[in-house]
């Protein structure tokens, strides 16, 4: 039995999990649309935050609501709501990020009413010294809204608990990632992706227990055979486990990533300080940014380079959801930077459904160039 089986089950049965959690605890479940949502405050209120992700089925219900030039991911997310797959949600929220995903939130708000709906105007200028006070103020307002919704006052002790749950989850997943530095890592990219995805869909207290158990077992896991080609995957939202498995079936292993379903989600912690809301604000301002918030300096690029070096990356796949403007604005410069640093990269554009056959050929060709194989 794979030590990642529980994570896989959670990922595959996310709706069943949330419904059972709700029945078991009597608590509220909130669907969120972007990883800038301060889950600490939701955990403080004993609300279960679950990320709304797509299902990788062809688009068939969103055309009247979102113009087709917007990314397939935002349309796929909305489709889940329109098809009634998240009927158990008590509330939804978004923390201001890209324009695309906002539309999924709005159309959901308009057509699938819930008892709680919140738009948190997360700053974009996260590098500005003015962003701290501003975001702290917004978090205070959000905390008040959650208090009104749940009917309970959130104390510092509640916020401490929320931060501790989140920080533990981040710390443990980072420890698992650390093991990917090994020459023949005890986990593959698909395992890592399902671990992170399931953390966005389950009660992190349970997830943390499973992570602790995993860390007991994982260092003893050995993989036989030649060390595979070490890849990094970089880009916009990506929960396409099938693609990762396909690429890893070709003699490669993903050892790191820059995704909001990966390191961008959990890499840094909320550092304790007297003002709890300021601690939470600082955490979201300091996290590895989404490209839409990565300006004027390109801080994400520096983090990508650090990870690539620390994890011994031989090549990078740059993937992007079709029409994702923030990533499209970054990719040419990022590819140049990686090249300057001796890391070859290859670009792939993702849609709701990924054509595994053609992509297999392209990834194979990239791996051949990395291995410097003779073709004949």
């Amino acid at each position, binding site marked *: 039995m794979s030590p990642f089986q529980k994570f896989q089950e959670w990922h595959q049965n996310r709706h069943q999990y949330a419904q059972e959690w709700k029945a078991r605890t009597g608590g509220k479940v909130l669907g969120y649309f972007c990883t800038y949502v301060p889950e600490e405050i939701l955990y403080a209120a004993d609300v279960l935050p679950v990320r709304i992700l797509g299902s990788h089925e062809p688009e068939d219900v969103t055309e009247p609501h979102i113009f087709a030039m917007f990314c397939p991911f935002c349309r796929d997310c909305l489709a889940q709501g329109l098809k009634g797959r998240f009927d158990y949600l008590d509330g939804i929220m978004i923390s201001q990020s890209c324009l*695309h995903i906002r539309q999924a939130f709005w159309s959901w708000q308009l057509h699938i009413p819930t008892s709680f709906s919140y738009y948190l105007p997360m700053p974009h200028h996260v590098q500005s010294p*003015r962003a701290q006070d501003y975001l702290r103020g917004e978090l205070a307002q959000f905390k008040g809204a959650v208090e009104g919704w749940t009917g309970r006052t959130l104390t510092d002790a509640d916020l401490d608990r929320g931060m501790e749950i989140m920080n533990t989850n981040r710390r443990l997943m980072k420890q698992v990632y650390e093991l990917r530095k090994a020459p023949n890592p005890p986990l593959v990219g698909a395992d890592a992706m399902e671990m992170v995805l399931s953390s966005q869909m389950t009660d992190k207290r349970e997830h943390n227990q499973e992570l602790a158990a995993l860390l007991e077992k994982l260092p003893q896991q050995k993989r036989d055979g030649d060390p595979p080609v070490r890849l990094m995957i970089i880009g916009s939202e990506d929960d396409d486990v099938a693609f990762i498995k396909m690429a890893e079936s070709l003699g490669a292993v993903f050892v790191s990533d820059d995704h909001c379903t990966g390191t961008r989600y959990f890499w840094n912690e909320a550092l304790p300080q007297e003002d709890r809301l300021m601690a939470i604000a600082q955490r979201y301002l300091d996290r590895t940014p989404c490209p839409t918030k990565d300006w004027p300096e390109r801080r994400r690029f520096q983090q990508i380079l650090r990870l690539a070096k620390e994890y011994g990356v031989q090549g990078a796949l740059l993937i992007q959801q079709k029409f994702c*403007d923030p990533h499209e604005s970054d990719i040419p410069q990022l590819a140049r930077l990686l090249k300057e640093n001796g890391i070859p990269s290859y670009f792939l554009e993702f849609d709701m459904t990924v054509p595994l056959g053609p992509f297999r050929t392209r990834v194979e060709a990239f791996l051949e160039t990395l291995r410097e194989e003779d073709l004949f």
Partner: protein
Amino acid sequence: MAETTDVMRWQTKPLECWRLAKEIREQYYRNYAQAREKGGLRWVGGAWSFGAIPCGLGDDVYGLTSEPYGATIAFNKDLALECQEAAEKYGFARDLCSYMRNYWGSVLLNKYAWGGPFPKPDFVWQDHICCSHAKWYQVVSELEGGIPYFCIDVAVGPYHERTDSRVEYMVGQMHDGIQWLEKITGRRYDDEKLIEAVKNEIRCTSLWAEICTLNKAVPAPLDEKSMYSLYVHLVLNRYTPEVVSFYQTLRDEVKDRVANQIAACPTERCRLMTDTQPPWAFLKIFRYMESYGAVSIGSLYTYGLMGIYDDQPDGSWGAKVTPMERGVAIKTRDQALRAYAEWTLAKPLWQHFYNPALKSRMMARLAREWQVNGVLLHYNRGCEGLSIGIAENRLALLKEGFPVMPFEGNMGDEREFDDTRVMSRIDTFMETLGLRKLY
């Protein structure tokens, strides 16, 4: 609308201030190009950037705003294609903002739309509400060899939900920006010049709202295609006294046209409105619709890109009373920046970034008060910022009872505009409105 064959013809005549509008525009682009020859400075930034702020550096500081520049290129199909291909060759996706690609291509080719090489800016002064804004100039700064870059985040939520903290965030960034301007230029900042420029901008954007409100009249004194040439100063140099004076002249002329029933379209019998930027290389669609007697009286885009509105005592929509008219003191740097932030946050075209329902309400109001018979929605592949929520706007307008014709295109990339198909759709839409071609 009932089909009409015997069409009443309104009196019409060209706008007297048309030539002046063209001259001011040409002078703007010349000033930017020639700034260095006069020892001045050049800045670049978006049409929504707080252009009044660099005015405090002196009278010899000239800006070049990117969206109108991208539209200027779009109007020249050959240059636009050259620019787009240069951006694509560099590695940028062809579905990115088409103004941005035109602009980047112009820099990469080192070709200025008004002739000669692209005049290198001294610094970037930008604002950010659309995902492309900050990224646009991050790339420009790099392509220009690392020129200094400052950007103000204005995405603080809709006007009706503004709080002191949200306004403070914007004002704080403005203060930081002024310190940054002093540092990178080595110049001493003049608050008096800032105050005057802020007041000019507020006057201009209020005057434009007044002009657009006059277009409620039947027949409409202005048509939207002409308005594109008139509103442009608001996205170029609205903070100058010349532009205030221009809009006062235009306002007076439009008032006169209303009083004398002088129409933009002599055969006006159907009033339309559009949405988002037009496909600049295909403005002929407006004249084509006029062949049916249908005039586009404007749009939330044309009216609200820069015009600032408010509820009037009679419940209608009209120009917002300026802080100067309300007696708000604007005597210090902080007062000027605060008034500037508060005023700008009311911009109609900033509201839909937080909820399409806010835009739908304004569009329906515009359609009612301006007596619109039908709506053309440009599903603009070239601008994600103004196209977000457009599908929900369509549903809302239909629910309000307005006939709606969506058409897909691109404001700046003609490769994404199907000329024949759009014309054919217009024919069908006109027929559904009960109109027949007059000529």
